[in-house]
């Protein structure tokens, strides 16, 4: 019995140690659709783009931060909900996206003091969380370009 309890505690601690910021996939966000359109219009070469959005920080069900998995590019994109009247859409996206292999390494030791590298394990965990728990969005480049025509937006 003792062994079972110890095993249970060990598993619990391991789970806590691996805890990430995932909070919910149910959130309200007045800007996420717009920002996904912005990202696709400016940075995507795919006609169809699938995104999975997991909230990592909420405020009374209002989205504050999220991790977005972009399936076509195999990228994780840190997302920041901007205030409603924000002018610069690019600030919604974190300074560094995480692309599998390009921005991932095998061990935490290899990450070291890098300000953007992460481990493969970390990347895969987030990708799985996004796909399993995230809110899916499908953004067509043609639609995105209608919202953000190339060259016509001041915030390209």
């Amino acid at each position, binding site marked *: 019995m003792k062994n079972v309890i110890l095993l249970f505690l060990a598993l619990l601690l391991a789970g806590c140690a691996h805890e990430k910021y995932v909070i919910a996939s149910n959130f309200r966000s007045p800007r996420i659709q717009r920002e996904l359109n912005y990202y696709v219009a400016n940075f995507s070469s795919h006609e169809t783009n699938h995104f999975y959005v997991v909230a*990592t920080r909420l405020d009374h069900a209002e989205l504050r931060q999220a*991790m977005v998995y972009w399936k076509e590019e195999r990228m994780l994109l840190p997302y920041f909900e901007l205030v409603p009247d924000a*002018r*610069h859409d*690019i*600030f919604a996206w974190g300074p560094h996206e995480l692309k599998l292999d390009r921005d991932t390494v095998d061990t935490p030791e290899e990450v*070291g*003091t890098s*300000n*953007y590298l992460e481990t493969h394990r970390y990347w895969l965990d987030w990708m799985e969380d996004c796909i399993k728990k995230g809110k899916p969005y499908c953004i067509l480049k043609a639609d995105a370009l209608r919202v953000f025509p190339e060259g016509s937006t001041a915030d390209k």
Partner: protein
Amino acid sequence: MNNNHSQTPAAQDATARAVKKINDLLARHWHLDSVGLGNCRAAQRILCRLNEELLIQSAALANANFNPDEPRDRQGQWTNNASGTGTTRPPHSNTTHRPDHSTAKDATAKPKTSGTAGGTKPAPAATPPPEKIALSTDEPALMLERLLLAETLGAEEHGFKQADALKSVRALGALIYNRAHAKQLGFSSIHYPTNLLGVIQQSNQFAGFEHYNPKDPKGGLSDRKLHNIDIWMQGANDPEDKRNYTNYLAIVKQVKETAQNINKGKVDDPFSPSFTFAIKTAGPRHADPGGSFQFLGTAAGNNFYGFSAPSTNRNQIHP
């Protein structure tokens, strides 16, 4: 009425008629008053007429010498007759139109503000245009400014406080300085390049800056990085953007000040007396730097790590 010599003949006649009428009314009222009928209805009507005439006359005095046919431009300024003989020109004007109370000191400096007769008010002091702020043109200040701006989030647009964003800029500046001067600071077991360019170009340390090229006008940076930096600079030079202008300007000023301080060998570490050596950029980050790094604090979503004091006993640390 005491400047008839400067009036036109028609104006002089009108003035004389008005004076005669007022005198007549005064005489009639005096007569009624002298016979004990000063409060009768006739005397009251005379007083009313007298008041009307005085009012008309006082209004006419200001424009007694006004000539509506005198040529003027769209702003009402005289377009000829610069000799000062124009009927509506104040007597002391020559080429510039000034109020008569102008002092000798400002007589040559004050510009004409309007062409209305009877003097003008001085123009309100124009607000100076907001100062233009630009990136440095010389390296390594430019490189430092670019890095600091590229790593800074939009602050208030993200819901962070401005003070928090400024702290983040200072911490990142301190981080770069500390890495480049680790040996001088006593961190003999930490291995970083010993110059600023080397620190910034170091592999896997600052995303997008590994291939920074000081000789390239764009620094070898990606369009997205440059765009981010441009937005900061545009925002700091756009006073029309009421919401963000002061915030952007404050951050860009902090960036420039931090870069200049680093250049001069000064450091302003917000986590002092600890030494900042590592940053994990805002976002749901997982991996800490590990080793003997200590978590120093968070600013604008970025986590900063470092050491409390130099120690030669610390394990060898490689970035």
